C-alpha cells in the first residue's frame, strides 16, 4: 500500500546481551519513506532494544540496519555520529537535560552539526536559533524558552523532547514509549502531535507503545514483537483479539478493541 522509498531496512537484526538474554532474534523489517509504524509487544519483548539498535545506543550482535542506503551498523565513530543526525529520538522519561533551559535542550539537537567550542559557549548559528523558536512555537511552548527544563510539566517536557528530535532535521524518528509517563489526555495530544509532525515533514517513525488502542488510533502500520521475534505486521484494523492473544497472551481483548471503535465514531 505504501510505494515510498525504503527509508529504513533492518536485516536479520539480532541482539544478545552479555547476560545471555536474547533480546532480538533475526528481525527483518522494511519501513518506507514517511511511514509511521507502531511497535507493540509486552514488556521485555525487545522494543526498546530494537530502536536502540537502529541508532546504536545498543550495539547489535549481528544483522544490519540500513538508513537511506547507509549501513549504520558498519559505520565507524565519526560516520555513526553523522548518521545519528538523521535519526531523531524521543524518550519515555523525556530525557531532557534537567538543569539546562528549554532553549538549550532544543538546541542540543544541533550538536551533531556544530563544533565543540561553538556548542560549549552556546553560540549556535542564527538559523538554528530561528528554527528552535519556530519549533517551540509549533508545539506551543514559545514563552517557556528560557525556563529550566525541570520547571515544566510532563507533557511540556515531552514537547521539548519532540523539538529536540525535530531540529536535527531527521528523516526518521525513533520514539520510545512517548506516552508511558503521561495522563490519557496528554498521551493523545502527544501522539497526535508526533504523527502530525511526521506527516508535515514526511518523516518515517517507529513508535514503541504499550497502549494498543492509542496506537490503532494514530498509525498506519503495526508491528508486534514477542520475545524478540516479529509475530505480527499489518494495518491497525488487522489487530484482532487472536492477534493480541498471540502477542501478549490470553486475555479478554474485545473491550480494548471495541473501545477504539467507539472513540473513532466520536471523533
Amino acid at each position: 500500500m505504501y510505494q515510498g522509498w525504503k527509508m529504513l531496512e533492518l536485516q536479520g537484526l539480532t541482539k544478545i546481551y552479555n547476560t545471555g538474554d536474547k533480546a532480538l532474534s533475526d528481525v527483518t523489517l522494511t519501513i518506507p519513506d514517511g511511514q509511521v509504524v507502531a511497535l507493540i509487544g509486552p514488556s521485555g519483548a525487545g522494543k526498546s532494544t530494537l530502536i536502540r539498535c537502529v541508532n546504536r545506543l545498543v550495539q547489535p550482535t549481528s544483522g544490519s540496519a540500513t538508513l537511506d542506503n547507509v549501513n549504520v551498523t558498519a559505520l565507524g565513530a565519526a560516520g555513526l555520529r553523522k548518521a545519528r543526525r538523521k535519526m531523531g529520538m524521543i524518550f519515555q522519561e523525556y530525557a531532557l537535560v534537567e538543569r539546562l533551559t528549554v532553549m538549550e535542550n532544543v538546541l542540543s539537537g544541533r550538536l551533531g552539526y556544530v563544533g565543540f567550542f561553538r556548542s560549549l559557549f552556546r553560540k549556535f548559528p542564527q538559523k538554528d536559533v530561528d528554527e528552535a523558536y519556530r519549533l517551540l512555537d509549533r508545539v506551543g511552548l514559545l514563552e517557556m524558552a528560557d525556563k529550566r527544563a525541570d520547571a515544566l510539566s510532563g507533557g511540556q517536557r515531552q514537547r521539548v523532547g519532540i523539538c529536540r528530535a525535530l531540529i536535527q532535521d531527521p528523516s526518521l524518528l525513533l520514539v520510545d514509549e512517548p506516552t508511558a509517563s503521561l495522563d490519557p489526555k496528554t498521551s493523545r495530544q502527544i501522539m497526535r502531535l508526533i504523527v502530525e509532525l511526521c506527516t508535515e515533514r514526511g518523516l518515517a517513525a517507529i513508535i514503541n507503545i504499550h497502549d494498543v488502542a492509542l496506537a490503532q488510533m494514530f498509525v498506519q502500520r503495526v508491528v508486534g514483537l514477542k520475545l524478540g521475534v516479529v509475530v505480527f505486521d499489518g494495518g491497525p484494523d488487522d489487530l484482532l483479539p487472536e492477534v493480541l492473544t498471540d502477542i501478549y497472551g490470553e486475555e479478554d481483548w474485545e473491550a480494548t478493541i471495541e473501545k477504539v471503535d467507539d472513540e473513532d465514531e466520536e471523533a
Partner: protein
Amino acid sequence: MPTLEKDGRKIWQVRTTKSQLIRWGAWLVGLAAFIFSWKEISDNTLWFMMDNVGEVVADIAGRATPPAWSFVFELGRPIWDTLAIATLGTFFSLVMAVPVAFLAARNTTPSKVLVRPIALLIIVSTRSVNSLIWALLLVSIVGPGVLAGLIAISIRSIGFCAKLLYEAIEEINVVQVEAIKATGASPMQVMAYGIVPQIMPAFAGIAVFRWDINIRESTVLGLVGAGGIGLALQSSLNVLAWPKVSLILLVILVAVVIGEWVSAKVRGAII
C-alpha cells in the same frame, strides 16, 4: 525466616532469633572494647598532673586576658596569607581533581583496567596523608613560606574533591547522556551537555565545602613553617606571649566562622 508459625497464626518479627543474638553479641563486644580502652587510657594518664588542672587553666586564662588588641594590626598580613593559601589551594586542587575524577568514574574512564586504578591511586595517596605532613615535606623541599602551604593544601585536597566528584559522576542519569549521544554529538559535546550540567551542583558544593575545610587546615600550617597565621601563633607560643595567643585564636575563630557562613550561603544558593 522472620515469619514463624505459632498456633496456626503467622508471627512476624523484624529479625530471626539468630540474627537478633548476633546483634546483641556485637553490641556486647563493642561495649567490652570501650571499657577496655577507657581503662587503658586511665592507667596511662599521669593523674597527679590533673590534680591542679583547674589552677593551671585559670592561670593561663588570667595571663591570656585581656588579649593584646593592638597586636591585631600585625595579624592582617598572616590571616590574609592563610585565606590566600586556602582559596588558591582549593582552586588548584579542583583544577587537578576534575580530570582525575573523570578518569576514576566507572562511566567516563577511558580504561577500567589501566587508567582507573591510577586515578584511584592518586585519590587514595593524596587523601591519606595529612596536610600538615605534606607541609612538613614541602617546607624541606621548597623552603618555608606560603608556597609550601599552598602546594600542601592543593595536593591534600585533590583526593577529597576527586573522590566526591567521581561519585557524583557515577550517579548521573544515563538517559540524559543517551539522549545527547543520540543527536550525533561528539564525546566532548556529550560531556559538556549530558554530564557537566548534571554534576554542576555537586561540583559547586564540593568546592565550597573543601574551601571551608581548607581555611581551618591552613591556619595550622604555619606551625611547621608553611606560612599564614599559624606562624604567628607558633612564635607567640614559643615566647609564652599568652595575650597574643588568645588574640590569634580569636582571629582564627572569626575567619573560620566567616568561611562557614559564606560556604553555607553558597551551598544554599545552589541547592
